[in-house]
């Protein structure tokens, strides 16, 4: 791990092109005008020709996922860049217990304060790691914050009127899964599986670096968000929901199916309670599995995690979280609901 960092940073500094000048004229304004003109022409010429209902439905769902996630992503990237630029690393060593096993539940419980959905939590968690927070603690925060923050708890209570235990069960199960996943990662995880994004602020204006970091993170995370959006929209249009109701009565299978549905739909955690409530044919435990799995594992989140922390991380962490979420929500659903 330390070798890799050394190699990478030596590859970065000093940038070889510093001080060089090229003879290329500035193409920026012309390129920009060209792209804008192409879009306007395309709008006038192409749009009336695209009438296939399947394509338009797909495009609506795809654009809706992207548009809905963008504000949360921007918020998360802003927060992450601010943490990296303006919060000194010493703050985290003071705020979190020094023993990593104690830091995991504290970080998981700290998820209560970040009102956002899962798109915001990935950049924030990566920002925390780059500031020296134990990866396992940052991962517990990553898993818990989209599911236990006040906005989501209130939304769940509103979606299930007369069933206050649903919100309570969701809170308990999500926190439990987050802490358990953090501990398991601490015990069995290897540092080489996880690519911790490093953040350096070499000389120059802090604000310019801040802007550069935001631009970089936004494009990086946004690109993976688009990958997830494409997959989710495609499955959303192709898979008929009638398949679901046919298994609604089967006890264990129904929970597994709803958990998989949560992965496929990639709904924002602030809205998924309303969708769960509309699946009237399913048992409360199956709905709880939907609510616990959704904010922790879904297609756009998998894409974001693989992009941010590396593929070796995602192939291990995603199945671990999925299984934990399924088991814990079944157990808690059996006791509380």
């Amino acid at each position: 791990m330390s070798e890799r960092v050394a190699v990478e940073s030596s590859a970065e500094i000093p940038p070889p092109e510093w001080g060089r000048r090229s003879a290329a004229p500035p193409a920026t304004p012309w390129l920009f005008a060209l792209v804008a003109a192409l879009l306007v022409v395309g709008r006038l010429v192409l749009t009336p020709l695209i009438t296939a209902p399947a394509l338009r439905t797909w495009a609506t769902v795809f654009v809706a996922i992207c548009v809905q996630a963008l504000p949360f992503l921007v918020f998360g990237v802003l927060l992450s860049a601010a943490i990296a630029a303006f919060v000194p690393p010493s703050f985290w060593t003071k705020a979190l217990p020094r023993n990593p096993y104690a830091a995991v539940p504290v970080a998981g419980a700290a998820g209560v304060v970040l009102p956002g959905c899962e798109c915001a939590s990935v950049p924030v968690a990566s920002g925390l790691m780059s500031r020296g927070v134990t990866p396992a603690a940052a991962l517990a925060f990553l898993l818990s914050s989209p599911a236990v923050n006040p906005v989501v708890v209130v939304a769940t209570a509103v979606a299930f009127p007369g069933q206050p235990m649903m919100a309570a069960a969701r809170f308990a199960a999500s926190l439990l899964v987050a802490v358990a996943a953090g501990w398991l990662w601490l015990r069995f995880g290897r540092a080489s599986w996880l690519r911790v994004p490093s953040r350096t602020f070499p000389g120059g204006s802090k604000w310019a670096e801040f802007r550069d970091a935001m631009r970089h993170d936004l494009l990086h995370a946004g690109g993976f968000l688009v990958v997830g959006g494409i997959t989710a929209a495609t499955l959303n249009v192709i898979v008929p929901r009638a398949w679901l109701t046919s298994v609604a009565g089967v006890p264990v299978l129904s929970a597994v199916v709803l958990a998989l549905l949560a992965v496929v739909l990639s709904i924002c955690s602030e809205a998924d309670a309303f969708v769960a409530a509309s699946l009237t044919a399913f048992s409360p435990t199956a709905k709880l599995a939907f609510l616990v799995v959704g904010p922790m594992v879904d297609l756009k989140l998998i894409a974001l995690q693989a992009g941010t922390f590396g593929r070796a991380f995602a192939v291990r962490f995603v199945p671990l979280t999925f299984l934990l979420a399924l088991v814990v929500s079944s157990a808690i659903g059996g006791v509380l609901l």
Partner: protein
Amino acid sequence: MSRMSQSLVLTLLGGVVLWISALTTSYLNYVKPGFRPFLLAAGAVVLALGITGLVQEWRRPYAGAHAGHVREGTGEHAEGHDHSRAPKVGWLLCLPVFAIALIAPPALGAFAARTEDGPARPPATAGSYVPLSGEKIIPMAVGEFIGRAWDFRERTLTGRKVRLTGFVVRSKRKDRWYVTRMQMSCCAADAIALKVAVLGAAPPPDDTWVEVTGAWVPPRSREIPNGTVPHETTTGPPEMTAVQVTEIPQPSEPYE
């Protein structure tokens, strides 16, 4: 991606987001009305990032314009530290821009409502409706109509004339078509179809927006045992007979 391509993509993205949220109301095809302030803020931040980057590149005409090609494609090793470079996956953000600008995706319509076998029964709303009275035609949301139709104890719809607004989904059965509204809780990806079967009127083409005036048809099997919840698949959407069907333009808020 060089800093210039990054800035270009972000400018386009921010511009498109502001276009659908600030200048037009087409954001209503994708998200809830209450989401507008967040979209405006996000669009403004993204646009500002893009434009400052473009200005920065423009002011510094010679240095940097060429540097973009030197280390392009160094892959993962360039990610995460050198922030003037961004990974190539960022180009994908052009896709939503192109989709919005070129396809101009409309609100979900008959295609989505047909493949979507949403619940006939809206969750947990029954019992909270105001009592109806009088002979006048009552404009009503499709969801409310379905909720009242499912309320077996009160039967508040009996003998009332109501007007529903929605789009047309044609049925395989000859005697009916559906007046439909999509209901979403956050974005169009979670939308479910609310359908009411219309009897006694010729079906307009799919996706036509209509106002249907008519009366509720109580389900034929009236013997519902006490305490049992009828299963969706046996009953299907509630029915109404139409006395008047008027074509209307699509409302600005297409979802319920």
